[in-house]
């Protein structure tokens, strides 16, 4: 039956514009980095096109592959946390928005399988977006002729971005639980925005390795340096979110 749950959860996306909207949003990240690098490459050209204000200060930005490889995981980690929260809130929250939750929960299928099925859809969806962002980065960086691309750096860019995407995914079951608890999108999106802000705040303190959202924001630019304790914190966040979501669907009232 789990196979049929996976098939139907993917089938629910047919004809939906939401995957395309999230793809467009994800592609804005690498495009934004590339735009700034393109400006840095030739400030005079950018100024003539009205892309550079007179007070703009891009002194800290280098138009190189090492810089791109440093920024991309941060963009996927930061904006990605919000985008993934939106995806998860959509997958779980639509059942309440479309009033189909009662149909789903009244099926002869263990409710936990729906939680797992929707997470599987979110995982594949998120992986496709991350791969698209990496692909776009390589296309734009190559088109701009950025210097400094080596095989080792290319591998690091891909690894760091995928690890950041994976770390973002580990905190998303908590968003699923909030969505089911509140029976809609809004609370979950508010929670995600709040955690992103808190994560940013905590990332400037000594608690960063212990707070899941701060780990995603700070730890992934150099994935080799990630402490095992932080990995365990992320895995614990995933397990807690998954368990809370399943227990909520199975034992709470679903009016």
């Amino acid at each position, binding site marked *: 039956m789990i196979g049929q749950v996976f098939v139907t959860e993917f089938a*629910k996306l047919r004809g939906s514009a939401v995957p395309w909207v999230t793809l467009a949003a994800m592609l804005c990240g690498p495009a934004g980095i590339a735009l700034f690098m393109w400006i840095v490459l030739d400030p005079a050209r950018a100024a003539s096109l009205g892309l550079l204000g007179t007070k703009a200060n891009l002194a800290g930005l280098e138009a190189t592959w090492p810089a791109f490889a440093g920024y991309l995981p941060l963009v996927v980690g930061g904006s990605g946390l919000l985008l993934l929260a939106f995806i998860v809130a959509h997958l779980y929250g639509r059942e309440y928005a479309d*009033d189909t939750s009662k*149909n789903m929960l009244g*099926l*002869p299928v263990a409710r936990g399988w729906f939680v797992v099925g929707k997470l599987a859809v979110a995982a594949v969806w998120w992986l496709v977006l991350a791969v698209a962002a990496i692909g776009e980065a390589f296309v734009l960086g190559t088109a701009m002729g950025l210097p400094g691309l080596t095989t080792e750096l290319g591998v690091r860019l891909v690894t760091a971005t995928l690890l950041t995407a994976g770390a973002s995914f580990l905190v998303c079951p908590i968003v699923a639980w909030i969505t089911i608890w509140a029976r809609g999108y809004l609370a979950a999106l508010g929670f995600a925005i709040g955690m992103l802000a808190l994560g940013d705040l905590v990332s400037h303190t000594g608690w960063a390795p212990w707070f899941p959202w701060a780990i995603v924001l700070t730890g992934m630019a150099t994935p080799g340096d990630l402490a095992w304790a932080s990995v365990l914190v992320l895995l614990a966040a995933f397990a807690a979110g998954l368990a809370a979501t399943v227990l909520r669907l199975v034992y709470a009232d679903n009016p």
Partner: protein
Amino acid sequence: MSEAIITAEGLRKHYGRVAAVDGLDLEVRRGEIYGFLGRNGAGKTTTIRILLGLIRPTSGRVSVLGHTLGTGGQAWLRQVGFLVESASAYPNLTVLENLDLQRRLTGAPASAVGEVVERLALGPYADRRAGRLSLGNKQRLSLARALLHQPELLVLDEPANALDPAGIVEVRDLLRELSREHGVTVFMSSHILAEVAHLADRVGIVADGRLVEEAPRDELAARARDFVRDSFTAAEREEALLTDDLERYFLARTGGGR
């Protein structure tokens, strides 16, 4: 006496101090059409949601198709088709795609989709997205979803909602056929007496979360006639009959039979 398909004993559901269901006892027998009649807010939908395991009772015991609710998994729902409150479907999917989801998750054969589409006269809308269906056709889709896996028990909350007069007659005939010819047990709620009176073998009247009366349809009709004769004037009764005649005429003129 036929085997009980649904039994509820001392069923209670409280939301804080509000009792939505308050000591309800219920028995629905195999093959019968049971009309669960009550005004808005009487506790009909809460009872139905409890019967389907969507909400947990505060106290009491419920058994559906021999399965005691609150124990075991969800496999017993394979024999139950239902429609709760309002019609709903995935708006981005077509009628066929919506039904295919249901088919896969209930283990029904592929041919079942075509059969219910024909039965519920959804053929012309089969490739239309559910979000673009009229309310009436959305209701038909929800009924098709409930019937798709040929359940033993149908639990229907206001099944005539949003249907036009001809549609109401069609659904009425369909439910009667399922009960008489296929032995399907139907538990249907309504706040419309006429809807229940047309179909039900037995009727339970619920008020303030309690079953206040339960009787076979004909017995209840006799009680109602006595009540009307004793409580209303001849002119008031004539007015009521006129309304009834007008409804029949309207149904006949819009394709609903004689």
